[in-house]
């Protein structure tokens, strides 16, 4: 009943969200969830709270759970090559357990 799966967490600026969702779709991810936040990395500070003249620079985290480790790795690889070469952002992977494997 419980199945092993991989959770991909992708943090980047909202302005690049669309590109990333495209990659996810092409690689067959069946769902994802997006959270908005603020962040600080090698590029400038992203305030989470006050009116930002540039809302699209807000940080988003995209969480995708995929069943196959291969798919996870392939998505991560494509993202690192195609998106996060020039753009700010990080990708991390971790192990999770899920139910109803057919959904992922």
């Amino acid at each position, binding site marked *: 009943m419980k199945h092993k799966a991989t959770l991909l967490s992708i943090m980047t600026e909202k302005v690049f969200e669309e590109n990333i969702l495209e990659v996810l779709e092409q690689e067959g991810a069946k769902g994802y969830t997006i959270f908005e936040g603020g962040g600080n990395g090698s590029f400038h500070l992203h305030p989470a709270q006050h009116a930002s*003249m540039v*809302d699209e620079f807000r940080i988003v985290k995209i969480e995708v759970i995929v069943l196959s480790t291969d798919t996870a790795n392939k998505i991560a690889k494509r993202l690192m090559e195609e998106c996060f070469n*020039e753009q700010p952002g990080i990708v991390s992977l971790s192990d999770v357990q899920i139910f109803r494997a057919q959904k992922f």
Partner: protein
Amino acid sequence: MDTLVSFGQLFLGGFQTPTLGFLLGGMFMAAMGSRLSIPDQVYKFIVFVLLMKIGLRGGMEIRNANLAELLLPAFFAVLIGIIIVYGGKVALSKLPGIRPVDAIATAGLFGAVSASTFAAAMLHLDDIGMEYEAWVSALYPFMDITALVLAIVLARLVTQKEDKANDKEAPKHKRKDINIQAIVVDSLRGSALSALILGLLLGLLTKPEPVYESFYNPVFRGFLSILMVIMGIEAWQRLSELRRVAHWYAVYAVIAPLMHGAIAFGFGAIAHHLTGFSPGGVVLLAILAASSSDISGPPTLRAGIPTANPSAFIGSSTSIGTPICIAIGIPLFTELAKVVF
């Protein structure tokens, strides 16, 4: 001499006009480390209402306007956008410590248009009673889109050249052809231009006078004052980022608004003599050029030129360009119009 004195007075008095006062007030509070902040959602609502107001009024008056008159200024708006971006690229690229993509992105942002600065200029003209053409807000997209598209195209050409120079084969996924139409369409779809266009259409095609008089017009001044506070806070906060990049950006950001305004004023004067473009219209054309985009420009450039450093282009525009344009540009070009015409 008289003119100088009267501009001096105007400038000092300017600090007392609420618009500039609220901007400086926001900067001051941020400088003092205040945690004052206006929620992002309120900011978006205010921008929407201001742009609808400008659009509605434009649309309502265009109904009775002779649109042939719009052609020359619209052509000039495009031309000015090109001149600013190309000129800015050349000028900035020569300065030490500035990468080509950063030069181009910065020039692109200064070529694009700030809706809030434009609103402040319109309110100023209304207050002093200087008239202007109804359709002048429709010039906005001509200059704005031209500048953004040109900047993105120039940046891609530069990147491709560099890639070739490094003998790097461009990765498969990089789009090799530059699709200008896609960039134009994408710009038109941005939230700021969309609100302006929606207002124009509704002003033109429906009869929004009651809602304009009962809501959009009365709240204009108040909403603009809050927007100025937000812009002041933002200006100060971005300053710390700007400090981390080359100092030449600051120099450019001080000079550019006034220079761009002067160029546009010149073109406006030509239109004035050729087609009777009004003095107020000339001032607004100058402010379109002098302003730098703060809402839709930054994300468009971020997405279009991801290798450019936003601290540089946003910092110089938000922290220096816009305050200079509002504090000096608006009174300067208004006064100039009074003297010249």
